């Protein structure tokens, strides 16, 4: 994939124990999904570091979703908690450089929640596409 293709895309880091299944099912069942979503399988949302997300933004992604298990459902106990905290910190870093912090999103879904996963991704992609946000980036 080239940077140009990524420009309008969303990268979703998906926990292989939960959200990944939900997103794949959503696709499989033909639920309405933004076309531009690229999923990256991760063993746990807690494994995704700040620099992974920043690299995704740098390479042209319009937004990044960190898709974890629901609260208290993490196989590694605290992975989702850590992931959410890390994302909060990352938003602060983006704020620091004047980059719209809503380009990154923390979300959770259970494996069976295909509809929920699809809805989260749709909403996120719609928000990213809104004129206000593009203007914000331009500025």
């Amino acid at each position, binding site marked *: 994939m080239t940077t140009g293709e990524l420009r309008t895309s969303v990268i979703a880091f998906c926990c292989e124990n939960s959200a990944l299944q939900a997103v794949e099912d959503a696709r499989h069942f033909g639920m309405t999904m933004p076309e531009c979503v690229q999923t990256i399988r991760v063993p746990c949302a807690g494994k995704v570091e*700040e*620099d992974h997300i*920043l*690299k995704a933004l740098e390479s042209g992604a319009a937004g990044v979703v960190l898709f974890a298990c629901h609260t208290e459902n993490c196989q590694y106990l605290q992975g989702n908690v850590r992931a959410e905290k890390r994302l909060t910190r990352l938003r602060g870093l983006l704020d620091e*450089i*004047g980059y719209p912090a809503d380009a990154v999103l923390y979300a959770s879904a259970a494996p069976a929640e295909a509809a929920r996963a699809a809805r989260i991704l749709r909403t996120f992609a719609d928000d990213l596409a809104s004129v206000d946000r593009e203007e914000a980036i331009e500025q």
Partner: protein
Amino acid sequence: MIVAERKAISDILQMIEGAGRVLVVGCGTCVTVCLAGGEKEVAVCASLLRLQNQGEDRDLTVAEATIERQCEWEFARELDELVPDCDAIVSLACGAGVQTLAAQFEDTPVFPGLNTQFIGIPEEQGVWTEHCLACGECVLDKTGGICPIARCAKTILNGPCGGSQDGKCEINPETDCAWQLIFDRLKRLGRLHMLEEIEPPKNWSHSSDGGPRKVKREDMIL
């Protein structure tokens, strides 16, 4: 370890203004362990600088490198080939690391990307606390292994002062009173009698008050 914190990106941006090619250098020792200036933090810092520059007119390239210890010539020299290609270095190391790079690369401006905080320990995951002030004349033998120089807000040698209450320091309810800790520890060790003696005034000439310090080992000098 030496504990540090990253400076605000806006401060770093101000320092590197005008530089087109920037090298962000991390240090693999103390500041890696305290999550301020290791390889990962270098990647984050470099990414932030590049992202911030998106949509700006100027060309900015940000290279990354992390060496084992910035405060040693042998490791600093590993950057010899990278440095000529850059206009500025942002050092994510303690003040000693920054100065080593500045001395090693005389023709390239070296900027501090961190604020060096203190010599400390990871109190718990994600929390670091100051434990040593490098005063040059250790008193821990007399204070139950708890340093009043680094951990008492007034560096009192004959504490605790009147502001110690419920084990906390008057300046901050989150800060333990070092002298309460010393008292408790010596009590536990059955050595409370040590606190009955007046500890004489400190000889600060061994500390930074005596001017920049130097340690020599004659047998090691070539």
